[in-house]
């Protein structure tokens, strides 16, 4: 048991996810979609009908935010900010000259973080099938032959910065608007919106009001 926990805590795969803004924000939003409705559902002071409505609405809100984030924000901001950094902000930096896209850097880094033996196997495999590694320049190929290759933290940092900006814009500004447009029609379709509105009119203002706004 302790060994299993130790293995999870020192897992390099988990560390890669933790260091990736998009992956961590996606997982965190997914957990929000479970945690918040669950706590609303567990509240014994709220009327069952209101509870059902509020929990469904919270789940829909988080789920739509997550879908919007994955579909629109991740690709646009990840690629967009890499291009912006490469061509304008850090155009004189050598680190950016080695990579054409964020995807290419991500592949290089995934190879560079592996041990030399594993890395060589993967490289051969990728070379054999004519994958991304064919596009690497000589500097990067030479780096990949070293025990500890250069990881180009500036490129990684620029990609992560773009992802953070994208996450903020996407989840705090864009996704709420998208979810607001979808939540009410979905709730009306499910027959939950009208019933609850009538219910709130009857209830006293001192009691827990239903969050009608997303």
């Amino acid at each position, binding site marked *: 048991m302790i060994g299993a926990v130790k293995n*999870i*805590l*020192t*897992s*390099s795969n*988990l*560390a890669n*996810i*933790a*260091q*990736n*803004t998009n992956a*961590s*924000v996606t*997982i*965190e*939003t997914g*957990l*929000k979609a*479970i*945690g*918040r409705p*669950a*706590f609303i559902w567990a*509240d014994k*002071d709220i009327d069952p009908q209101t509870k059902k409505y509020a929990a469904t609405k919270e789940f829909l809100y988080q789920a739509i935010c997550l879908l919007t984030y994955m579909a629109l924000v991740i690709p646009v901001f990840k690629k967009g900010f890499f291009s912006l*950094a490469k061509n304008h*902000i*850090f155009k004189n930096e050598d680190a950016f000259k080695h990579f054409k896209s964020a995807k290419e850097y991500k592949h290089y880094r995934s190879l560079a973080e592996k041990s030399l033996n594993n890395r060589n196997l993967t490289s051969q495999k990728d070379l054999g099938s004519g994958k991304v590694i064919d596009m690497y320049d000589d500097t990067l190929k030479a780096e990949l032959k070293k025990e500890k290759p250069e*990881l*180009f*933290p*500036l*490129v*990684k*940092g*620029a990609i*992560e*910065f773009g*992802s*953070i900006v994208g*996450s*903020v814009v996407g*989840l*705090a*500004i864009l996704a*709420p*608007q998208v979810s*607001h447009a979808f939540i009410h029609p979905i709730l009306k379709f499910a027959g939950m919106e009208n019933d609850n509105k009538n219910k*709130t009119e009857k209830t006293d*203002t*001192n009691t*827990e*009001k239903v*969050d*009608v*706004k997303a």
Partner: protein
Amino acid sequence: MTLASKFKDICLSLGKNNNPAYAVMAIATVKGICRPTFTMMDKTEDPETKKYTALREGLTEAIAIPAYWTTATLAGKMSKLFKDKKQSTLAQKNLLFIGVCTAALLVIPAACSVAIKPFMKFIQKDKKDVKNPVEPQKFDTGAVNNIQVKDDAVKNYTTPLAHDDKRPNLTAFNTLSRVQTSMKVGGV
């Protein structure tokens, strides 16, 4: 230090160690400003509901920001249990992420359930007090009628004069029944 070099330092720092708490705290901060603003801008909603919802949304994010930071930092400190430096570094990254996930799944919803409801009730109670001030106490006529007069002499003295046949009945003094003469002020 120029703005460009400062930005480069930020990127380098993020590239070397990207704390997952940064992103979620940035999201919570902007959400805490934008969500209540959007709610208040909605013209279709009832103003009272809007105020209530906006306040609740703002409070949720206000709770979320320190919760993310505290949970992630506390979890990250557990990495000191690993004596091997490489393992400790990996564990710190993973524990920071686990801390953020724990905050999102358990800590923030629990804190919101505990803190927001009493706070909202407290605010609504204050509003009710301003809108409906305490009504003055009604005069209790029953209490006056129940006063017992102990002294019989006083009781006899206070017999209404209208029942005394020797004295004129003042209720018969009706001004309208008298002839109105001259133009006196007041008409009497």
